[in-house]
């Protein structure tokens, strides 16, 4: 058998469950009773390696549905959407979409958004290094230029307006977090994830702050962004801006 065909057939048989490809077993020099056990070592290695990556990237999803259900679900995902980049920090970005369409878990409609949040945390950890805009830097901008100033989000930042309380669900699975029973599943929630000082950070911004951040993400001028957030009469632009700058969420657009 040509090497390309052997590798194609091994790919098929190693990623799935069930019987191993008899055509491959026939190629082995080992005694016939041992062949399945020997080839199965590689199947176990492949599936275990990919499962471990997803275990580490989606710990809250795993806790929500239980380890056994998570393994069964992700093995189906692995068989259908295996990695194509040989660097495993990048594997798992398609799992949220897979969960959204996975019929056996349709009763947990918020699960896919929790997975999106966990993936965003993974991406924030590995995003490009970039100095955030500091409060002092913004202080040097002449007041007359402020309304037209365009700000952007740090490359690690991710803003998501979910119809589900995903930040509260995530928080309930952290040491010292809130109680899962106390989370109102009918409540929509925005969540902001970013990296600052080498650590991934996360909080739930108010609707006005969320509108401001969404405008920054589109690199709107500051005056326009402020207008979008000003629908809330209590919104304090300078206080919110100061906090975002101190937290390292903002930068100048590239």
């Amino acid at each position, binding site marked *: *058998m*040509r*090497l*390309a065909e*052997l*590798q*194609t057939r*091994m*790919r098929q048989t*190693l*990623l799935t469950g069930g019987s191993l490809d008899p055509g491959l077993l026939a*190629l*082995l*020099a*080992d*005694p016939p*009773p*041992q*062949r399945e*056990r*020997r*080839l199965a*070592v*590689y199947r176990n*290695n*492949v599936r275990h*390696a*990919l499962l471990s*990556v997803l275990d580490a990237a989606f710990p809250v999803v795993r806790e929500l549905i239980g380890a056994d259900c998570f393994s069964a679900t992700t093995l189906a995902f692995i068989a259908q959407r*295996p*990695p*194509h*980049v*040989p*660097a*495993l*920090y*990048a594997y798992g970005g398609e799992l949220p979409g897979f969960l959204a369409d996975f019929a056996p878990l349709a009763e947990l409609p918020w699960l896919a958004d929790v997975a999106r949040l966990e993936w965003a945390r993974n991406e924030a*950890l*590995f*995003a*490009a*290094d*970039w100095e955030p805009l500091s409060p002092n830097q913004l202080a040097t901008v002449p007041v007359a230029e402020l309304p037209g100033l365009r700000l952007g989000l740090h490359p690690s930042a991710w803003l998501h307006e979910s119809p589900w309380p995903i930040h509260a669900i995530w928080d309930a699975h952290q040491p010292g977090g809130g109680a899962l029973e106390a989370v109102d599943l009918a409540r929509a929630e925005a969540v902001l994830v970013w*990296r600052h000082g*080498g*650590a991934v950070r996360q909080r739930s911004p108010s609707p006005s702050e969320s509108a401001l951040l969404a405008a920054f993400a589109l690199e709107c001028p500051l005056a326009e962004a402020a207008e979008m957030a000003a629908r809330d009469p209590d919104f304090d632009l300078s206080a919110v801006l100061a906090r975002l700058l101190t937290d390292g969420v903002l930068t100048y657009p590239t």
Partner: protein
Amino acid sequence: MSLAHNRAAILAQAGIGLRHPHLPAFLTAPQPAAWLEIHSENYLAPGGPRLVALEQLHGDYPLSCHGVGLSLGSAEGLDEAHLARLRALYDRLEPELVSEHLAWSTAPDGTFLADLLPLPYTGEALDIVAANVGRAQEALGRRLLVENPSTYLRFREADWDEAGFLSELVYRTDCGLLLDVNNLYVSAANGGDDPLAALERLPLAAVGEIHIAGHARVATPVGELLIDDHGSTVAEPVWALLRAVLARTGPRPVLVEWDTNIPELPVLLAEAARAEFHLWEVSDAAG
């Protein structure tokens, strides 16, 4: 004496694999490790604190970059985008040693299988691996050390055994050999061979780095298999085989690998200290 020679001399000592749980200990205080090894693919992300920490540590420790994803045995050639990512990492870190495996992990459709899969040792496979090693050395601008794999099966179709295949590969590409003593032991046991006989037939003059690690013994209804899980202390027969290797190669950089059930750092450092003792046994100082 040239700088390159100095660095090679520094590295003929025992090093350890730097794994994430031990990073804080290394960043807090100097640790008695002569050099560090990393899996290159764990540092290919665009940014983040891990890469920053590694750059900081490389100022104090020589570094060996061990690739686990290039797939030198891929029938359809190498992933050029991956080669470019590795080149950028190596240019940034300037590691003292760079290595890959005699195995494949990327299928013809581009699927990455995240394991070091076995090759039939045929003429077709040798042509493919030699071309891939040549391309990798050219694209990375560095000599590669190629590691003997741990294997659990053998293909009927074979023009060489593993030692013969590796000798041909070294001859054709001028690559070096990363001799994994645990893999040598595991593969020989799983294939019913004598590891010392295999050792005598390997191209030992090309050895640039040596690995040791723990393995697991798994009983099956059809006999025992040794699994190369890097999850325990080095087994006594592997220590004995290491001494046999060092007696033939002389001092070489020896790495203690531990990747699953990672222990507290002192446990790992104690294994490295024992390797250091065996290196001393074959050094000039031992007379």
